[in-house]
């Protein structure tokens, strides 16, 4: 178990790891061999509460301090110094910090983030610094200045931006995710609308107001368009909402369609459509024109997702042999490969580096079988998989964060949207916590 945790952490923090682990030795044991390139072990970082500058900083400073601290904790690459261990002094500018206090026990910080936040003239102004505590001669790593309209939301967004700067600088050059968004389905009475929230669950608000059942949100790679499906007079159809225009834009509706997916260049959309009388995977351009069918096999097909790294492969779910299984193929429909060997598989999500597919799997599915549905990650080249959730009810709809270090998913005691909540975890299955209350479903993490 400890070896497994270590390897999974290596996968998340990015270690050079070549290890073999055994999972569920009693059941079908699987070996997972991962070779992942990245930086070293976790950096110990301390975050000082920011010093209130001129004006009444009060609630804005609290929002900022809390957000910055949780962003760095969520990043999964830091050993974050507990605030209770931090020196009582509150340095606001470089002249005020005494690095010796931060580099010795019990703090032992390698890096210190600090700064000041002030409000004046309806603006909130933040100066943020990142210092290398062990480098007494030239300690400054980062100095950033931000100014926005004074509001708690602005204070949170500034904290996200500063956190992303720190993560980018210390995390091996991988951009942080604190400014990313998660799109999801929100149950509103008998209807379902598409909502958006910050990656940490804050700032939840509706995008669509269609008064019907809208599901399967998928944001475009440049975050300019949101594809989803919506129930109308002709059944479920793919819709595209322009985030720039603030309205649904034209997309042809032909036969029942579901589960749209963007190609990484944003120029085509894959989806399942029954226009030929049987659900198959189709690919069209971003406006829904020039649709061409790329599967042709009787039985349900759904949930396509492009390899986000190459755009040249599609993973999807097919019931061509009975219960739904995970398959991959080239994006022209050739070289079909089945990846799972049984149970009930749903909701594939391809990792940003193209190496892994996350999916939901009930390995003991069947009438009367109480099998739980959990989140799994499979390495495509080896077909080895690991299980990330255990004994926590039904999980579904995993979606990778842009940095490939996190997975958001739904969890509930049953298969009803009214009881499902959205959770996030590190891609090794640790640090699970809820982002929403019940009635939230089908999360989709933005591409950047």
């Amino acid at each position, binding site marked *: 178990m400890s070896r497994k945790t270590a390897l999974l952490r290596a996968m998340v923090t990015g270690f050079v790891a070549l290890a073999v682990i055994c999972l569920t030795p009693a059941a079908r044991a699987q070996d997972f061999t991962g070779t992942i390139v990245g930086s070293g072990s976790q950096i110990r970082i301390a975050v000082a509460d920011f010093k209130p500058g001129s004006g009444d900083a009060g609630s804005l400073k609290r929002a900022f301090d809390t957000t910055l601290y949780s962003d760095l904790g969520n990043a999964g690459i830091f050993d974050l110094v507990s605030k209770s261990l931090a020196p009582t002094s509150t340095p606001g500018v470089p002249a005020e910090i005494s690095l010796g206090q931060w580099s010795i026990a019990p703090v032992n910080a390698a890096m210190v983030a600090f700064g000041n936040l002030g409000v004046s003239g309806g603006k909130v102004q933040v100066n943020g610094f990142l210092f290398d505590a062990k480098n007494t001669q030239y300690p400054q790593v980062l100095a950033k200045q931000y100014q926005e309209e004074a509001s708690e939301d602005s204070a949170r967004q500034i904290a996200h931006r500063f956190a992303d700067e720190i993560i980018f600088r210390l995390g091996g050059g991988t951009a942080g995710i604190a400014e990313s968004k998660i799109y999801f389905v929100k149950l509103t009475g008998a209807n*379902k609308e598409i909502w958006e929230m910050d990656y940490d669950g804050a700032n939840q608000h509706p995008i669509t107001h269609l008064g019907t*059942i809208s*599901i*399967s949100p998928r944001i475009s790679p440049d975050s300019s368009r949101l594809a989803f*499906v919506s*129930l109308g007079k*002709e*059944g*479920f159809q793919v819709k595209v909402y322009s985030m720039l225009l603030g309205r649904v834009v034209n997309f*042809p509706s*032909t*036969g*029942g369609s*579901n*589960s749209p997916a963007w190609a990484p260049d944003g120029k085509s959309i894959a989806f*399942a459509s*029954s*226009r*030929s*009388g*049987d*659900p198959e995977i*189709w690919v069209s*351009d971003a406006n*829904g*024109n*020039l*649709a*061409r*069918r790329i599967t042709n096999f009787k*039985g*349900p*097909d*759904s*949930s396509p997702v492009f390899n986000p790294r190459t755009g040249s492969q599609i993973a999807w*779910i097919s*019931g061509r042999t*009975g*219960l*739904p299984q995970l398959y991959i193929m080239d994006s022209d429909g050739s070289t079909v490969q089945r990846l799972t060997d049984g149970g*009930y598989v*749903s*909701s594939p999500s391809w990792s940003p580096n193209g190496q892994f597919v996350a999916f*939901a799997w009930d390995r003991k*599915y069947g*009438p009367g079988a109480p099998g739980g549905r959990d989140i799994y990650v499979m390495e495509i080249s080896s077909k080895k998989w690991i299980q990330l959730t255990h004994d926590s009810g039904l999980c*579904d709809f995993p979606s990778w964060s842009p940095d490939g270090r996190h997975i958001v998913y739904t969890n509930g005691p*049953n*298969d*009803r*949207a009214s009881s499902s909540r959205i959770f996030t975890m590190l891609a090794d299955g640790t640090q699970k916590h809820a982002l929403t209350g019940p009635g939230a*479903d*089908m999360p989709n993490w933005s591409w950047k």
Partner: protein
Amino acid sequence: MTQEHMTTSRMPIARTLLTLALALTLATGCGKKKSGVDPNSLGPVEPPTTASVQPTATITADPVLIDLGQSVVLNWRTTNATVVTIDGIGQVNVNGTQTVSPANSTNFHLTAKSDSGALVEANVRVTVRVPVAPVAPSDATNGGGGGDMGTDAAFHAAVQDVFYDYDSYELRPDGQTSVAQAAAYMVAHPGVRVVIGGYCDERGSAEYNLALGENRANSARTALINAGVAPARVRVISYGKEKQFCTEANEACWQENRRAQFSLDR
């Protein structure tokens, strides 16, 4: 069309050759013929150069007229081309076929480019017939109300829904009986159109169940058509697991929800 492009694009090359030849003549100091270059003397130089680089291209579609949802096979042939693109599809092989299903009438525009940069284009138009919504019989002629569709009560008294096994879209014997009843009713009432709703129980993936619901509704539709009902009279909508008839978590309830439901399509 193609020939026109060839001649116009050949012109500048010929002119360049001419200028080049003139310049060469002057530069080498061979003054004997500086009063003029005989164009005929350049003749033999020209054809091999241009003929080898000038691409040709044709594109055809079969059929060129389809109904919405049907497919067309595009077939193209090029010679001397290295980069061939079709608008909307992107770069393609120099010769090839592609099955497409345009949602609207579309001009497929092919551009073939040779190594030397010479371009040639070819076009084919595919016309898509979009079905015009049938005009509902006006209420005035039928005295309002249900018209010749009959009433919902009469329809539901005569036609039973079809139920399915778990994760299946095969018609069971009881389902075949229901379809036979529905077909008989529709043959006896030629004004009736139906919409078949495909439904799934609450277990499993919402997206996969939308596809499974399509298969369920379509299996009932296919059986109706095989029993002699005109295809245009039957429409399908999958609701997946988004609409439940019964909301308890037990097999009796789940069976209730795994169905294809017949309704009048007004």
